């Protein structure tokens, strides 16, 4: 992967000027490359990784992973039905997976009740959905390579040494 992307994936706020210095490139060139990635959609957006354990969020207190079994449609396969599912705002992630189930859907809701309601009333009754299995999420340890734990600055090293 291009080192520009590697840097941005770790720190979305890294400026083109800083990246240019790190890679000994021209800042204009780096800006151009980033613009190109944005235009092509290789860079989709920049966002903060939020530790939800520390935030009270009335609308999204409960999360569930839902395995969804679906009947693929002629000519369209899974994509069309997946789109119908991931378009619900309650769905925060949606993956096509191999194995016993076809889609893995992550749903966020206010409480157990709203999430179960969503599954019962919206998801299960969709045409082509054959069955679901809901797993409520109890704790998140690591997500997308980020360990969800606030680490105080590394002070294990002695402050000065040869």
């Amino acid at each position: 992967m291009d080192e520009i992307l590697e840097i941005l994936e770790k720190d979305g706020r890294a400026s083109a000027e800083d990246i240019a210095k790190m890679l000994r490139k021209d800042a204009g060139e780096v800006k151009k490359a980033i613009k190109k990635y944005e235009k092509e959609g290789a860079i989709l957006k920049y966002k903060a990784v939020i530790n939800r354990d520390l935030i009270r969020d009335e609308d999204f207190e409960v999360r569930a992973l839902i395995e969804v079994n679906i009947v693929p449609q002629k000519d369209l396969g899974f994509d069309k039905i997946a789109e119908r599912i991931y378009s619900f705002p309650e769905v925060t992630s949606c993956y096509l997976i191999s194995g016993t189930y076809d889609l893995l859907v992550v749903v966020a809701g206010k409480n157990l009740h709203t999430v179960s309601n969503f599954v019962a009333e919206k998801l299960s009754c969709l045409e082509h959905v054959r069955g679901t299995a809901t797993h409520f999420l109890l704790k998140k340890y690591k997500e997308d390579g980020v360990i969800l734990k606030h680490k105080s600055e590394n002070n294990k090293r002695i402050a000065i040494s040869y």
Partner: protein
Amino acid sequence: MKNIVSKKVQIMQPSGIRVFFDLVLGMRDVISLGVGEPDFVTPWQIREAGIYSLEEGFTSYTSNKGLYKLRLGVCRHLKDKYALEYCPDEEILITVGVSEGVDLAMRAIINPGDKIIVPLPSYVSYGPVVELAGGVPVYIDTSGSGFKLTPELLRKNIDSRTKAVVLNYPVNPTGVSYRRRELEDINKILLNKGVFCITDEVYGDLTYDFNHTAFPTLPGARKNTVYLNGFSKSFAMTGWRVGFACGPKEIIAAMTKIHQYTIMCVPITGQMAAAEALASGRKSVEQMKREYNRRRLFMVEELNSLGLKCSCPQGAFYIFPSIKNSGLSSMEFSRRLLKEQKVAVVPGTAFGPCGEGYIRISYASSFDNLKEALARIRKFLEKRG
């Protein structure tokens, strides 16, 4: 009371920098660019191997030379990386970091009064260890040649009592390293004059602009060299204290003799973890190196733009900028920077008198820390006008 401490130790120069170090350690909220070790923790698979070995009950002594599987790992690693062949039975010794390796090598070769050449500025232990072993360190000031030992400097300092030279590259504290042909010239002189070579290449994996040359790979050098390396810097394993020494079997046998009486063996947990590092840690080394390299280029550019002139170091994780423009001595510059802006650096004089006018900056620190430190250094310099 009569002074019980030996004369040899009494006359050893205490590090003049100790007072400054104590000052740093006593202060809070300091951003330190003075740390001589990686800011990464040991990669997990390596730590896990150490933990697992404890669970399995590996808590005994190992052979004096070190675990065979680790020596074999070292042997294979050097063969893969440098096409350098050492026999794990007779030519490799596992040591307590490179520090022990340096001490053993000196004690194994020095007769009273033998001269050992130490290019300065350098890591702090070489000279004192030479003295403890009964030798005489001969310091060479390399500040006039871009902090490099040149063939001329070397030739000028060799006489009939010269036993060996200590090389360390990439160099702590300057980050300077040598290309193969430069080392070839040095090697020719050593072979020609019958001077032995002790080479500390602990930063060898962190060489950025060209491939690192292991000294014993030079023509004729293998039989004339003790090659020292370790896991501290490349694998971020400083606290495990594991290193290795490779060389001709007579020298390694002599070093092992001393090692078996003084150390017995390197702690087994560290050896187990180190074996895992060689087996699966190469990728982590490459990742860390890429990260260091970005910081290096960034810092060199920023420091130069602040007026702290530095050439681009080729290795390790140090930059050695000149602070001569400030009109302050290295120590005074470091002391004031610490007091006024809470940024710690190491005065260049810690690494020899010819480090005067320079400071050592370590970029083994997070990018955010580096940026904040630079902002504070800028403020410091602006205030001084």
